[in-house]
């Protein structure tokens, strides 16, 4: 017998494979290790599918499992946070043969993100790429909301110094959020 929540997990896993892989790449910094992490995530998600609440956000639930496995692996291998920054070119850069201008911009952004400290990089990814709210990111990362906010502020400060769009501070208009929901 499979209840609604177990079925939802099973069906949803197939739909979220690429997003899980991308998050895994961000965490482990390598494509092959990312596949292993996704596999471990799928196994555990299926084992724990009875714990999933049908109708709740499956992607957040899967991300939490993936992160938990990664964290345990990390601790067991005694790799301290912030160490072992992989070469951005090998990890995050788009592998296309024809580098058109937009690809180069994307590659530039990825390089800048890769250069951030791990905690800022991950927080930025969850909020600005995956569209988690501050609260969801805080829950997933196991930190207070204030920590999420200060990491984003620090990341933005750092990226802001590197260049990018120059704002027009004299203007009084409100700045709309450019964050996916």
């Amino acid at each position, binding site marked *: 017998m499979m209840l609604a929540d177990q079925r939802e997990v099973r069906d949803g896993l197939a739909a979220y*494979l690429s997003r899980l892989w991308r998050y895994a790449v961000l965490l482990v910094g390598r494509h092959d290790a990312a596949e292993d992490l996704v596999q471990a995530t799928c196994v555990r998600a299926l084992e724990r599918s009875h714990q999933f609440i049908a109708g709740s956000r499956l992607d957040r639930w899967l991300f939490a499992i993936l992160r938990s496995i990664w964290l345990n692996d990390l601790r067991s291998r005694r790799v301290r946070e912030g160490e072992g920054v992989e070469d951005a070119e090998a990890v995050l850069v788009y592998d296309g043969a024809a580098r058109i201008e937009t690809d180069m911009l994307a590659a530039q952004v*990825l390089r800048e993100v890769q250069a951030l400290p791990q905690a800022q990089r991950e927080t930025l990814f969850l909020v600005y790429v995956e569209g988690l709210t501050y609260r969801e990111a805080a829950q997933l990362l196991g930190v207070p909301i204030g920590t999420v906010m200060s990491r984003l502020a620090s990341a933005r400060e750092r990226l802001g110094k590197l260049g990018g769009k120059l704002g027009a501070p004299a203007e009084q208009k409100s700045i709309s959020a450019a964050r996916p929901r």
Partner: protein
Amino acid sequence: MSDAEALGRPSDTDLVAYLDGELSPYRRDWVAAHLAADDGVRACLARLANGARPFREAFEPLLAQAPVARLATMLDGLPTYRPTRAERRSSAPRWPRLGLVAACAAGLFVGAGADRLLVAMRATVTEQAEEQPDEWRRVVAGYVTLYTPETLAAIPDDSAARRRELAGLSAKLDVPLSAYDTALPGLALKWTQLLQYDGKPLGEMVYADPQSGPVMLCVFADGEADAAPRQERRNGLNIVYWSAKGRAFMLVGRMAEADLRPLADGIYRRLTL
């Protein structure tokens, strides 16, 4: 930025939250007021805004790079993952699995006939059919064809047990289902069962008609809109069905339409009006 806080000015974290639309309307207005009045705050905001990038777009190619085929193969190969691709390819009619949510005390079958029925139910394919509002009726009608007069005859009459079961169904379905509400003249209520379909509770009450065999009353908490009683025919069975207050009802059996309709009207009046 404790100095800023002490002065009552927005901190960097306030400004980031402002940029990301994460402030309450009250707090947002507070920041906006400071932005309007204070060059320093505006400069902070500009610095933080400069740190924005097309992050989502920049990470899209990485998504496209994912080895989806390999990952899907991995998923299919997991022992605890039961792929339905093979089942989907089959064009044979399929019955979704009706999960047993709770076994009523006497809802478990008794007698040899009942055992055969239980085995038949377990053998049905697990794939969930396309979701349409009337799909559950198709499924139930399919199951009713499994019932025979012998199946029900094997179950001893036990009105106390039926009353207990009805109370259980009432609670699960949130519909009043007393013995009076569910009584069908001339037909003995033989057993009840609580199943689930598509994750929602489905209650069954099965009666024995000496002439035409089993008659089933189903209540399905599908949350659909109200609908007046209508008739249909499936698998050689007659059905009267209606919806009220988010509950779908159906009365189904081999009984002639002319005989079934007054029974359904009685239930309709007692349960839903």
